[in-house]
């Protein structure tokens, strides 16, 4: 099959979908040995500067409208729901510090997390549980999802804006090393019975990584 034909196929597949597709899924529709990476970057180039662009998000590929045309399209959608300041901050802390516990979010913000904020972020499918920390109380940690990456047009959490600066300034170090001890960390209410039926001691921290 010719290259141009292979490009047509991935173009058709990607154009038809409103969700990002992985290169593996795309390769499934191509003949054995197709150079999917090259095909994708060819296609991306062909759409450079057009009204629709091919972008890589969360390690997958999708077509979306060119960002500079947002002014035209925005009026077509409903006013998006605005996140509260607290929710935005919480989301940022979770994104940059993940995996992070609820207590750590509170520590960074210096205020306890009001109810419903995590709920909202999880409902938007931006935040997800990421396993328990192996510390006393085995607190639940949270991180961001692929959906978060897609929404904000990020290929991985390593591409978060300002991540390098935050890291260089030492702001992403273990939250507790800088403790002021203003907020009491010991929240017995956060402790909970472990789900029986799973006795394995397993690793929790998995670092920022797009699954």
């Amino acid at each position, binding site marked *: 099959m010719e290259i141009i034909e292979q490009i047509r196929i991935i173009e058709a*597949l990607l154009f*038809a*979908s*409103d*969700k990002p597709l*992985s290169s593996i*899924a*795309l390769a*499934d529709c191509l003949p054995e040995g197709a150079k999917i990476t090259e095909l994708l970057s060819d296609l991306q180039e062909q759409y450079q500067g057009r009204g629709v662009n091919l972008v890589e998000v969360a390690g997958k590929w*999708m*077509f*979306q*409208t*060119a*960002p500079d045309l*947002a002014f035209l*399209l*925005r009026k077509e*959608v409903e006013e*998006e729901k*605005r*996140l*509260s*300041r*607290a*929710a*935005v*901050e919480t*989301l*940022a*802390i979770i*994104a*940059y510090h993940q995996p992070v516990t609820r207590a750590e979010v509170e520590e*960074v*913000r*210096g*205020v*306890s997390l*009001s109810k419903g*904020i995590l709920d*909202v972020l*999880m409902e938007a499918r931006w935040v997800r*549980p990421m396993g328990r920390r192996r510390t006393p109380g085995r607190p639940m940690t949270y991180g961001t999802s692929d959906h978060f990456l897609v*929404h*904000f*047009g*990020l290929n991985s959490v390593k591409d*978060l*804006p*300002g*991540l390098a*600066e*935050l890291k260089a*300034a*030492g*702001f992403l170090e273990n939250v507790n090393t*800088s403790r*002021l001890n*203003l*907020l009491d960390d010991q929240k017995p209410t956060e402790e909970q019975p472990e789900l029986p039926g799973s006795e394995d001691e397993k690793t929790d921290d998995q670092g920022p990584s797009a699954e």
Partner: protein
Amino acid sequence: MTEQHSIFDDSRPVTGDDEHRLILDIEGFEGPLDVLLSLARTQKVDLKQISILELVQQFLEFVAEAKVQKLEKAADYLVMAAWLAYLKSRLLLPEETAEDELSAEEMAARLTYQLQRLSAIRDVSAMLMSRNQLKRDVFARGKPESVIVTKNATFDLSLYDILRAYADHKTRKSIADIRIHKRDVYTLDQALDHLRNLIGTAIDWTDLFQFMPDNVGGAAMSRSAKASLFTASLEMARQGKAEIVQKQTFGPLFIRKTDRSD
């Protein structure tokens, strides 16, 4: 949600006319660190160079003047105020650090660090939110054609849906678990049966409450029996099966059978 402030909300009174004496309301803030950060900005220097002593003073004044509606909200601020007051005394007094304690300078440095960190997080929050967001700035295909290339995604179900379902289930269950216990009463039917049986044995006018059933139970049951017996007597009189007489207000009620066979 209780916290209403949008990131776009610039209405907070951070830039007062008199920058050294802000009159601020706790309601507009996201906790004591937020207040400290706002106060620190009034010093118009880099966060690294703020005067902690001045900041402490500003915060203590803020807390003293703040209008506090809810005590639980004030708690965070009061804890911070106490800590800052301690820090201030440590900063002013000659240093004599115990071994297991942080020096005043270290404490101040940590406070500065926290403020810088929060400030940095705010900056990246703004950067994050100003990115081109899907369905706000950039758009996916509006009318996707039905291809499912990924084989696993047969069902459109997220973890959130599962948690929501479990939580809803728990919510419903907790409601379903409320049982209203049946109250013990001496029913009207019981009283009617009882009265019908006994009234035949009486020869003449009899005080109604002579017919009170024995061993009905506690005081509540006894009250219930009395009420039902009275209602039963009225019912029997209505049916023409009994006559009732009361000679004086609050006096005893006398009852007798109407169609006495003797």
